[in-house]
């Protein structure tokens, strides 16, 4: 009797099904129950007084036999809500004009300027193929496309891994390349030019591009039956248009005049960042199995040519309450220094620097995340397959930042780093057939 290739590949599953039939029991869950496994997720991200993001995701993995896998990742997201422009508060009312020059947002005195009509949609598809090359090597390669209203991205990457020492040690090295094209609504504004009061920029181009070349070198090491260590070094070199065309910098009055109080913004200019940046990170992660529970501790140190240095500490503890239910508290601490060209604002008395950005993400700040995840196994129902349902709640805050140079006059009354407080809800269901 001849078997098809597929049946041969599924020998173990076939035997399991028939041994369970023999014993009159339900086949217990096996890692690969079918050719396809799915992981589906929906993310709700909501900032207090800020943006709201809805993001559905699907990760589909196909067992192609011979230990090869195809993974497809499809993501969509919708983002709406007020976004900080980078401008500073004023003692008077301000008006923020969107990039299209049509919609304006009135900003009350003392409030941080935001663009209320910020809206973006994104769709992305990524495919990865993973296959063994002989007994010791494995190659993963893939590519992806991401499309937004004003942004297109193409990416490709390849990672080669080799195992040593009875597969207790794995060394991997990979390269990635990403090409992005930025097509601002209303065109690319002239960097450092004054933002026109009533909108309607005079664009210097329709689009700009950037590319990112990356290298990743990693080691994973099995320490013992319960302990796994991962270490990565990554390098990424970006070049091209690295500005965010939405972001502006306020130029404030360094002296009070009849019309303007000391520290009040006089006008805004478009930011300008260097056209190259290289980033490096070292990442260390431990996964430890502790009597049924899993401790996951990670640390990352990052440094780049823009002067940002950061430390990240992550802690997760998967606490198995029973065979079918787990709780996972999650903590994360992140701290970064400011980019050398970061300024909360500029004084009208100082010469215009070559590079300046008031994007809070380039400022010094501390990010803290506290989260809790609940997971439970779900039995097969009338219309849903058996799987794992996970719900995660997270709270993320950013605090810090100040710029003594512009903390003058009326600005002393205002919060210069408005901070960020976001709530994150993610629901996930992973299943196979």
């Amino acid at each position, binding site marked *: 009797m001849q078997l098809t290739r597929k049946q041969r590949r599924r020998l173990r599953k076939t035997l399991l099904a028939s041994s369970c039939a023999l014993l009159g029991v339900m086949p217990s869950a096996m890692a690969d129950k079918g050719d396809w496994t799915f*992981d*589906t*997720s929906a993310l709700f991200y909501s900032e207090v007084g800020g943006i709201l993001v809805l993001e559905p*995701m699907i*990760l589909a993995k196909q067992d192609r036999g011979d230990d090869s896998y195809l993974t497809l*990742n499809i993501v969509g997201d919708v983002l709406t809500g007020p976004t900080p422009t980078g401008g500073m508060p004023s003692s008077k009312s301000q008006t923020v004009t969107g990039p299209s020059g049509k919609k304006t947002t009135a900003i009350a005195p003392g409030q941080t300027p935001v663009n209320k009509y910020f809206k*973006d949609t*994104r769709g992305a598809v*990524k495919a990865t193929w993973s296959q063994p090359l002989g007994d010791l090597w494995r190659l993963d390669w893939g590519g*992806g496309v991401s499309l*937004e209203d*004003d*942004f297109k*991205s193409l*990416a490709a990457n390849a*990672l080669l891994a080799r195992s040593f*020492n*009875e597969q*207790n*040690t794995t060394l991997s090295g*990979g390269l*990635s390349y990403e090409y*992005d094209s*930025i097509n601002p609504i209303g065109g690319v504004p002239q960097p450092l030019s004054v933002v026109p009061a009533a909108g309607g920029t005079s664009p210097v181009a329709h689009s700009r591009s950037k590319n*990112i070349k*990356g290298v*990743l070198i990693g080691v994973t*090491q*099995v*320490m*013992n*039956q319960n302990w*796994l260590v991962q270490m*990565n070094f*990554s390098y990424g070199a970006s070049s091209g248009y690295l500005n965010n065309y939405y972001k502006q910098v306020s130029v404030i009055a360094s002296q009070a005049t009849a019309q303007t109080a000391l520290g009040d913004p006089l006008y805004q200019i478009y930011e300008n960042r260097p056209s190259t940046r290289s*980033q490096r*990170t*070292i*990442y260390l992660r431990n*996964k430890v199995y502790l009597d049924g529970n*899993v401790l996951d501790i*990670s640390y990352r140190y990052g440094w*780049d040519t823009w002067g*940002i240095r*950061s430390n*990240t500490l992550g802690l997760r503890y*998967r606490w198995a309450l029973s065979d079918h239910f787990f709780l996972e508290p999650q903590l994360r601490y*992140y701290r*970064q220094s400011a980019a050398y060209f970061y300024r909360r604002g500029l004084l009208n008395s100082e010469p215009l620097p070559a590079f300046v950005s008031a994007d809070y*993400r380039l400022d010094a700040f501390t*990010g803290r995340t506290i989260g809790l*995840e609940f997971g439970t196994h779900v039995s097969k129902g009338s219309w849903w397959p058996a799987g794992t349902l*996970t719900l995660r709640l997270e709270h*993320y805050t*950013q605090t810090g930042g100040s710029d003594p140079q512009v903390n003058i006059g009326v600005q002393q009354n205002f919060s210069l780093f408005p901070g*960020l407080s*976001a709530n*994150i809800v*993610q629901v996930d269901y*992973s299943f196979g057939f």
Partner: protein
Amino acid sequence: MFKTTLALVIIGAGSLLSGCSSLGVRPWQRGILAKPEMSLNAQPLMLAVDDHIYFAKEGTSGGRDFSGGGCGCN
């Protein structure tokens, strides 16, 4: 039929053979490491969402793998 079984010694009481001198485990000791929750890529979409959020909100990104990027949010 085709088979003899070798004598097996059952060690019932908890006499753990305490840690071996070198790093790593033998293939038959991978039971725990093979658990899905011990995978470095357990819950891939949870990890991906974290990477994506922090990519959009912080100055340093990546480090764990090649994910992240592909977004005009930075």
